[in-house]
């Protein structure tokens, strides 16, 4: 199919979309006049019921915990796909990749930044159900802070902290842990993912009960998944390019 045919099909479809959008906009409540009821209801009952002050996290890991498990496995499946496509057995690893960052300022500042970013990420995960944050956000931040190691030092230092052997178990345990916590409730005769540990004290780390552990397993899964993606792309495409540069 040529580009011209595609555009010829797209334009009438766009017109139809415009009509449907206009129709929808006529009937939609004005911006800022949310009608509910779920948002209003959850904002009122989440703290008394679940003792979690961050209602968003209580929705992610408790009220809609089953749905989030599905999302986690989309993540897991996507990472599995990338690994299957990119991780080749007989990959030639150039031993002498001379890509160390020359500037001392960048190295020192970078290493300090890695420490600070890792701490902030762990705090984001740990306090995810108390203050803004949570396993997904903290996990993504944690992965980014580890990638800083590659940016401010060298590929050698990076492969020391982010190797397949270290990351694969984390990814599996993160995804599997979520299910195991859910099944734990079944053993006690309760519905899947029921908060068996009790709600705890609001506003402290000991609030959220089981959801706190689900939160950590999601954080682990997201961080490991993102790091696996980075290692695969760096090893498969960045390293050969860099090796070619130094050779030529």
């Amino acid at each position, binding site marked *: *199919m*040529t*580009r011209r045919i*595609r*555009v010829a099909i*797209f334009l009438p479809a*766009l017109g139809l*979309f415009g009509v449907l959008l206009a129709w*929808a*906009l006529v009937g*939609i409540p*004005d*911006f*800022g*006049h*949310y009608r*509910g009821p*779920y*948002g*209003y209801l*959850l*904002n*009122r009952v*989440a*703290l*008394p019921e679940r003792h979690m*002050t*961050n*209602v*968003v996290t*209580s*929705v*992610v890991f408790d009220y*809609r915990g089953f749905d*989030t498990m599905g*999302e986690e496995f*989309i*993540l897991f499946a*996507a*990472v599995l*796909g*990338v690994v299957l*496509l*990119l991780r080749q057995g007989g990959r030639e690893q150039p031993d002498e990749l001379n890509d160390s960052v020359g500037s001392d300022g960048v190295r020192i500042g970078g290493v300090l930044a890695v420490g600070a970013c890792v701490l902030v990420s762990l705090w984001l995960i740990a306090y995810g159900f*108390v203050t*803004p944050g*949570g396993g*997904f*956000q903290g*996990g*993504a931040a944690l992965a980014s802070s580890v990638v800083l190691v590659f940016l401010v030092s060298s590929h050698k230092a990076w492969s020391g902290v982010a190797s397949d052997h270290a990351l694969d178990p984390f990814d599996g345990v993160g995804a599997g842990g979520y299910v195991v916590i859910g099944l734990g409730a079944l053993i006690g005769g309760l519905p899947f993912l029921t908060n068996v540990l009790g709600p705890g004290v609001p*506003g402290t780390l000991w609030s959220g009960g089981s959801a706190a552990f689900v939160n950590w397993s999601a954080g682990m899964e*997201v961080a490991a*998944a*993102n790091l696996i*993606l980075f290692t*695969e*792309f760096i090893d*498969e*495409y960045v390293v050969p390019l860099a090796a070619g540069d130094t050779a030529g």
Partner: protein
Amino acid sequence: MSVFPYLVAGWICVIGLYGIVTSKHLIHLALCLTVTQSSTYVLLLAVGYVQGGGPPIFKGVKLGTTAVDPVVQSLTLTDIVVSVTVLALILALALDVHDELDTMDPDRIAELQG
């Protein structure tokens, strides 16, 4: 202009689709798909916004204070993280196509297959 955020969501969706339809490069195509997906975040957050509402976090804020809908926020945040990994999968496929067929043009792929 009480429907303005919804129009923005519609515009982002359409501009991304236009990019997909007219794309000449697989990586450009994958990024356009991400643009289209981003329109759902704008739409979701716009739907859940309450006039004058704060974040749905009640640490140090009295329970019952007006806050925006937490459900759409939780949907958005999980979707952002998942979309990154799915984008990585699409890019990996694009790189595989490049290795096999030595082209990144979606039209050329169809020619080579036929």
